[in-house]
C-alpha cells in the first residue's frame, strides 16, 4: 500500500516538475507575450496541480489535504485572472504600438469628437 502511494507521489511530482520546466523553457523561448502566457499557465495549472496530487498521499490528515487543494485552487484563480489581464494589455499595446496605457488608468476626460488637433 505504502509502495503504491510512493509510486503515485514520485510519478505525479515528477510530472509536475516536468511541466514547470517546460513552462519555464516556453517563457524564455516563445516569441510573444500571448504564447509566453500560454506556457506559464501550463506550469501553474498542470505543474502545481500534479505536485499537489503527488503530495496528497503524504498529507497527515484530511484537513491538510484540503488545504493543499485550496492552495491549488487559489493559484488557479489568481493565475487565470492575472494572465487574462496581462493578455489584454499585450493585445491593446499590439493594436496601438508605442502607447503603453495602464488598464486601470482613468479614461481621458476631454473628448475630441470633432477634427483631431494636429
Amino acid at each position, binding site marked *: 500500500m505504502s509502495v503504491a502511494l510512493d509510486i503515485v507521489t514520485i510519478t505525479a511530482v515528477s510530472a509536475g516538475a516536468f511541466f514547470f520546466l517546460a513552462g519555464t523553457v516556453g517563457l524564455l523561448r516563445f516569441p510573444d507575450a500571448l504564447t509566453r502566457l500560454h506556457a506559464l499557465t501550463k506550469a501553474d495549472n498542470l505543474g502545481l496541480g500534479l505536485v499537489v496530487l503527488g503530495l496528497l498521499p503524504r498529507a497527515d490528515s484530511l484537513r491538510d489535504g484540503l488545504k493543499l487543494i485550496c492552495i491549488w485552487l487559489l493559484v488557479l*484563480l489568481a493565475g487565470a*485572472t492575472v494572465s*487574462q489581464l496581462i493578455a489584454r494589455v499585450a493585445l491593446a499595446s499590439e493594436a496601438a504600438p508605442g502607447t503603453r496605457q495602464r*488598464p*486601470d488608468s*482613468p*479614461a481621458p476626460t476631454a473628448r475630441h469628437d470633432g477634427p483631431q488637433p494636429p
Partner: protein
Amino acid sequence: MTTASALEMVLAAVVLGLAVWTIAARDTFAAVAGFIAYGLLLALVWVRLAAVDVALTEAAISGGLGGVLLLGAAARLRSSETLASAERPGGVLRLEVALLSAAVAAAIAAAVLFLPDPVPTLAPAAAANAGATSLGNPVTNVLMAFRAMDTLLEKVVLLLALVGVWSLAPDRFWGGRPGLLHYADPQGVLAFLARLLPPVGIVFGIYILWVSADHPGGAFQGGTVLAAMWLLAMMAGLADAPPVSRRWLRLLLIAGPVVFLIVGLAGLWLWDAFLAYPAGHAKPLILAIEFAMVLTIAVTLGLLLAGAPERSAEP
C-alpha cells in the same frame, strides 16, 4: 552533500544573483520585478532556517506590499525616466557612493563573521518563560509580551509613515480621497476576482491572526492579507477609497496603538510595570490588542498603498 544542503546552496546562489541583478538593472520596472522575486525567494530562505513567522512577514511585506509600492513608484516615474537616465552623476560621486556602499557591506560582514561563539541569545530565556502567557508560539510571546514595547513603537512608526504619505497631498485635496479613481469593466475579469476572492481572503487573514497564538502567523501578516483584499476591491472599482478626513477611518487608524497603550498603562497602574499582563489573563488581553491591531494594520497598509489624497472628498 545531502539533497537539502544542495537545495540550500542553489537557493542562496539564486538570491545573491537576483540581488546583484536588481542593483545592476537599468530599467526601473525590471529592477522592481527583480526585487519582488528576491523577496519571495528570501521568504523560502527563512523557511529553510525554520523561521516560518519571519518568512510569512517577508513574503507579505517584501514580496507583496513593498513590491506593489515600488511598482506604483515605477509607474509614476515612467514619464521622466528617460530624462533622469540622461543625467548621469559625475565619476567622483559614483566612486564615493561605491566606496561608501562597500564600507557598509564590509562592516555588516565583519559584524556577522566576528560574532562570538556561541552567539549570545535570549532564546533559552524566552523558552523558559513561555508558560507565563499560555501562548504556544514563542514568536508571539516575544512580540506581544517580552518585547511588547517594540511592537507598540513599530505600530506608531507605521502611522507616522502614513502621515508622511498624506503630507504629500496638494492643499486643495487635503482630506480628500487618496490616489486616482480606478476604472475597470464591472463585468470584467478583475471585477470578478474582486467579488470572488475577498470572502476567502478575509477568512484567511483572520485565520492567520487567530492561529498566531500557537502557530506561525500574526497581526501583521493577517493585516496584510486584509489590506490586499481591500485594495483589490478598490482597484476593480467596486469600492472607492474613503476620504482621509472621515472620522471612522481616523478611529480605525489609531485603534491598535490606543488599545495597546490602554493595556500598557493599566499594567503600570494595576500591576506595577508598563505593559505588564496580570498572571492568568495574559492571553485574552493579548488577543484584544492583536484584534485591534489587525484592523489598524489593514487600514494603514491599504491607505499607504492608495497614496496621498489626490481628489476632493465628493465623488
